[in-house]
């Protein structure tokens, strides 16, 4: 159980940390990405890819739980 949680934490926390920690460095207009100023594109980009990261976390959760336990959930 502890291992399962820690493994899934890595992909799940990546977009949150990257989005927020990056803000001081991306507070600018250039380069324009798909017509959006860079700051907006940065935030939007991380929001868009978060489901993929959480999906990975979900799969990690499931595969480790299938492999190691049957604690009757």
């Amino acid at each position, binding site marked *: *159980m*502890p291992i399962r*949680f*820690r493994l*899934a*934490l890595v992909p*799940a*926390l990546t*977009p*949150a940390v990257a*989005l*927020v920690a990056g*803000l*001081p460095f991306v*507070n*600018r*207009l250039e380069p*324009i990405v*798909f*017509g*959006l*100023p860079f*700051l*907006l594109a940065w*935030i*939007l980009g*991380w*929001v*868009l890819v*978060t*489901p993929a990261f*959480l*999906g990975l*976390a*979900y799969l990690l*959760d499931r595969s480790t739980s299938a492999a190691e336990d049957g604690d009757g*959930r």
Partner: protein
Amino acid sequence: MTTPLLVILAFIIVSTVVGVIGRGRGAMNLERWSVGGRQFGVILVWLLMAGEIYTTFTFLGASGWAYSRGAPSFYILAYGTIGYIISFFLLPPLWRMAKRLGLHTQPDFFLARYNSPALAGLVALIGVVSIIPYLQLQLAGLGLIVHTASGGAIASEVAIIVAFALTCVFVYTSGLQGIAWVAIIKDITMVVVVVIIGIGLPSMYFGSVGQMLSELVRQHPSHLTFPGGTTTMGVGWVISTILLTGVGFYCWPHMFASAFSAKDERTIKRNAVIMPLYQLPILLVLFVGFTALLVMPGLKNPDTALLALVMRSYPAWFAGLVGGAGAVTAMVPASMLLLVASTLTAKNIYRPLRGGVVSEEQLMRASRGFMLLIAVVALILALWSPNELVKLLIFGYDGIAQFFPGIVLGVFVRQITARPVILGLVAGEAVVVSLIWSGHDPFLGMNAGFVGLVVNALLTLLSATGGQVLNHRNIQGSRRGTTTPLNFGGEHGEPRERHRVDGWRAG
């Protein structure tokens, strides 16, 4: 009466009829009125949650801030994502505890986990007080819609009182079951409307979204980077606000309790995975705000930017449809919030104060009485203490986000007790209230609520570990890692002696 106003009225009447039909037959009791008889399918439950995510705040508040503040409004796009990521880990164990202990409300959780009626009462009180600005926001938004759609013929004070009356009738006649059905209409219209105007308006005036944005950069070069059109909302404010509101997302009493009604853990996690995509319509709302700034600069109230631009650009019937969608978008969450706040007051404040001996019928009556009282307080605030819609929501977040340490530690750390949590909570709220009242928000460039949360979390952890060290100096039990804030191992933070939480049947 103007055409938009007539369409809005028709929209509201249809929604209310759907609400009344949706509530079904049979006598109304507190269980049915407030939790829909606990028979909601998963889809309905999550529709209700989405119904609370898209409110007047999203519609008018976000576009208003895009108009007046610019880049600081981007926080609205980001914070939900942080909230969903936290929910992926927090909600499943919470759901397990709720199921095992039979929890219904947020204070129920604090009572069962910490065995402290004082803490549970405090949480209920802070929850209700924080819901009031959120409610005020919905009433003010609804008032703005009626005011703008009438072409200014209906004064905004009158419009707010009309909004209040509409909401009260709506919640009295429908109850939660009815509201859930209206939420479906609301969400569909809302998304359709936002897609049409979010892409349509920039294209209408500038050819495309990209061209609108480059025109905005040309005319207002600093609008799309922090601090945008403000002097105080720099990177520090945005980061602290994203963290505060992201952490607070599931601390709202209604969001917290909504997790209790899910079918199973897997559903909760799957929802957390796809929910970030729910934020995308907000981007389109921001585009509308930016377009409005270029086309109609100098509006007296930025929160009317979206409506004013829609009324200027589209035929009257379509403007009415947008107004109608906006009106229902205010009424559904307002009703939900009223129901939750009145239920909390009746069940977790009124009943314990009466020594717990209250019949179900009395509880139902009290609940309706508190509903009216809370609505009137929100009405008075909306009339005499108007504020920007976004600011109101942030005030609410300042209050409820302070529950976060108590929730997380309560779920994941077995050793934590009530006293440090109460200490942190009280200190956090005190910091928030004094900073806002003394005009020090933002404080050192950070959101005052975030400052309170940091004080709160530090005090909770310090007093918890301090207490542990004193209590267990010679006991090897301390090797279990009492200072580890996230102790995921073994059983989750379950209380050893369980304080039984009564269901809805009193006595």
